[in-house]
């Protein structure tokens, strides 16, 4: 089980003033479940993921993994404990090859598996294995390679930060089915997906709505989806002047 106890996070804003990013977050996440974290931009979703990965150290509170307090552990140690995080905007590396980063993600990966994970995210292995992770790849391609690394790692705690962003509609459906198949009911792992995707949210075991740095709602898709669906419809109406597509 992954547990966040009274986690708060303040980061330096502009002018050096502390900005409250997370406020008293309490969460218990169990193995065998696929969780969705959703909520408005700037609500703290990515920061929460980074607190779990150890990229940010909480100003207050604790992070516990299977009862062990890991609040003070660094990123590398948490990776070794089995936490994996797929970046929302993965950095680029000049000269580092797709095959190499996949093997860093999972050192004993064999060629068949490696190719399989690339195909899972809609990339043809022949075209990508020896590609450089530099500026020659599009945002969508780099994002898919990020997701492929997470699939290859198969970590006990997997956090995917907007995995569908930049991925085409055909691949999204496949990606959702791969993630749900792997993590729903898998007693070995916890998966957390940060998403706004209306196809993804309803198939998760639980939806956690995070806004203004704290958990606003948490429950099954049946409980939460109607609440946020209306909210999404309202927002889209506000933005596009009334016509709403794709939200039923």
């Amino acid at each position, binding site marked *: 089980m992954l547990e966040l106890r009274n986690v708060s996070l303040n980061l330096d804003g502009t002018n050096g003033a502390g900005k409250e990013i997370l406020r008293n977050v309490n969460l218990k996440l169990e193995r065998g479940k696929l969780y969705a974290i959703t909520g408005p931009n700037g609500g703290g979703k990515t920061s929460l993921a980074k607190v779990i990965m150890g990229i940010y150290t909480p100003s207050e509170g604790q992070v516990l993994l299977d009862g062990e307090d890991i609040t003070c552990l660094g*990123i590398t140690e948490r990776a070794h404990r089995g936490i*994996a995080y797929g970046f929302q905007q993965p950095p680029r*590396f000049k*000269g580092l090859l797709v095959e190499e980063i996949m093997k*860093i993600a999972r050192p004993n990966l064999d060629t068949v598996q490696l190719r399989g994970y690339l195909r899972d995210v809609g990339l043809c292995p022949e075209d990508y294995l020896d590609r450089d992770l530099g500026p020659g790849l599009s945002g969508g391609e780099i994002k898919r390679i990020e997701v492929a690394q997470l699939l290859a790692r198969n970590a006990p705690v997997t956090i995917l930060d907007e995995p569908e962003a930049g991925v085409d509609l055909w691949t999204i459906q496949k990606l959702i089915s791969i993630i749900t198949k792997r993590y729903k009911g898998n007693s070995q792992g916890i998966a957390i997906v940060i998403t706004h995707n209306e196809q993804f949210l309803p198939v998760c075991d639980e939806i956690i709505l995070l806004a203004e740095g704290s958990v606003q709602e948490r429950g099954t898709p049946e409980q939460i989806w109607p609440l946020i669906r209306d909210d999404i419809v309202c927002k889209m109406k506000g933005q596009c002047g009334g016509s709403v597509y794709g939200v039923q």
Partner: protein
Amino acid sequence: MEFSKLEKDLLAAVADLHTLPQGAINIRKDGQAVLRRSSPNIEVIGKADRPGIDIIVKPGTTNEAVHVPVILTNSGFKDLVYNTFVIGEGADVLVVAGCGIHNQGTGVSRHDGVHEIIVKKGARMRYVEKHYGEGGPDGKRILNPSTVITVEEGAYAEMEMVQIKGVDDTRRTTTAYVYDQGNLKIIEKLLTHGNQEAESEIEINLVGTDSTAQVISRSVAQDGSRQEFKAALIGKERCNGHVECDAIIMGNAQIRSVPELVAESAEAILTHEAAIGKIAGEQLIKLMSLGLTEKEAVDTILSGFLR
């Protein structure tokens, strides 16, 4: 010819020579040729008037390589050599040069290589030159190569010059002339550390119509080292040239990067991009999130960058 372990290690570092290769070869050690061999298609001849060799590749020679490494093992030895390479029309060959210095003493070991390379009409040449130094902290290791290369009509030359470790001081000059539809690609990879200094000055004259040139420089400056990189593209006819210099700076190092474009024809298309920066924190965090330590992450980033 038997080489000691030290000599073998130097040869492996600069020319990937783990065993003696087939074909044409010249190994120069402390100012003397210790092994010289021609092949039926590639002649290696000592110069009569000054130290050095002529390497003459017969027209039409393909799938052959010539190895011409230099090693210095006597502390304080100063070597000066003139080498001329003529790659015959229509040939397609690999030239492996390189210099390794082992200086265990307190003197200044120095190798100045003056190279002239002519890639004849329609020929293709890949030239690889690695620099490597090792030994105690008191001796200095200096390498100053200067190269003039001519790429004739429709010829292609690729020069990869690598200096990763152990050379205290290097000043490299490369001057090139590229003729009609000739194509030159220069790749420089450099890592300096400690108090090392490295300068590289490249001037490419695109003198022929539809000549092309590309310069790719990747460098890493660590500790208190200093680097200066100058690359000038001079377009005299309808031509296409691009310079790309990318550097990672660490510690208290200094890097100066000076790309220069000179167009003497309205049909010349010349571009450059230069960037200097430290390793991005996001890159380190990303690799650490895959389980690498910070040091492993830095090493992975640098070795990829300098590949």
